[in-house]
């Protein structure tokens, strides 16, 4: 089992870098994972990350990218609920990459 080291504490991850224990997640871990993904976290990034965490809390799944895009559009407006905006923030996929930073499992129904 792989792990990452943040602030002197070790966090277990799977072989793709997703946190194993969701409850261990914190902002510092998010920043660390973002850096390994070459992402500089901004308020816009955090808005998506927080949205994902809330979605997971309510439905117990990480949404597929198509579902995420639609749900963000509904909540944050059409200018954010589109692929261009979300891929601009998370170039390797707002589903996979943002979920990893949010400490969630890989999206269900992501192909």
């Amino acid at each position, binding site marked *: 089992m792989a792990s990452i080291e943040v602030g002197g504490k070790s966090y277990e991850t799977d072989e793709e870098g997703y946190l194993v224990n969701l409850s261990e997640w914190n902002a510092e871990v998010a920043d660390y994972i973002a850096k390994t993904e070459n992402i500089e976290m901004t308020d816009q990034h955090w808005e998506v990350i927080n949205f994902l965490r809330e979605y997971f809390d*309510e*439905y*117990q*799944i990480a*949404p*597929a990218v*198509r*579902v995420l895009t*639609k*749900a963000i559009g509904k909540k944050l407006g059409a200018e954010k609920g589109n692929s261009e905006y979300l891929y601009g923030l998370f170039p390797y996929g707002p589903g996979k990459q943002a979920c990893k930073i949010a400490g969630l499992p890989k999206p*269900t*129904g*992501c*192909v």
Partner: protein
Amino acid sequence: MSDNKKFMFVNRKAPYGTIYALESLEVVLITAAFDQDVSLAFLDDGVYQLKKGMQTKGIETKNFSPTYRALEDYDVEKLYVEKEAMEARGLNEDDFIVGVTVLSRAEMGKLMDEQDVVLSF
């Protein structure tokens, strides 16, 4: 879109006692990504999957029932419950965590017959 096939997932097992209910739900979410016409049918003990108010802390198992409410986001909106099975379990429509269409066993059989692909769990 004309290539769309009609998929039906037939759920007949109670949740938690076996893994079928959760496996079915995951396959449904994955299938939904392919833009197919998806229906979910709940027969026999499968109707228990939709019961409101599950508290799984005591059995240390993930409560996956909230995920049925996310099906709408995945454009899976056709959920059918067999009337006879529901009534044999002392349940009614208000007991379910999501909105469903209640069908008689005969109607359910007809709907099943109209499908291109039926997957049974």
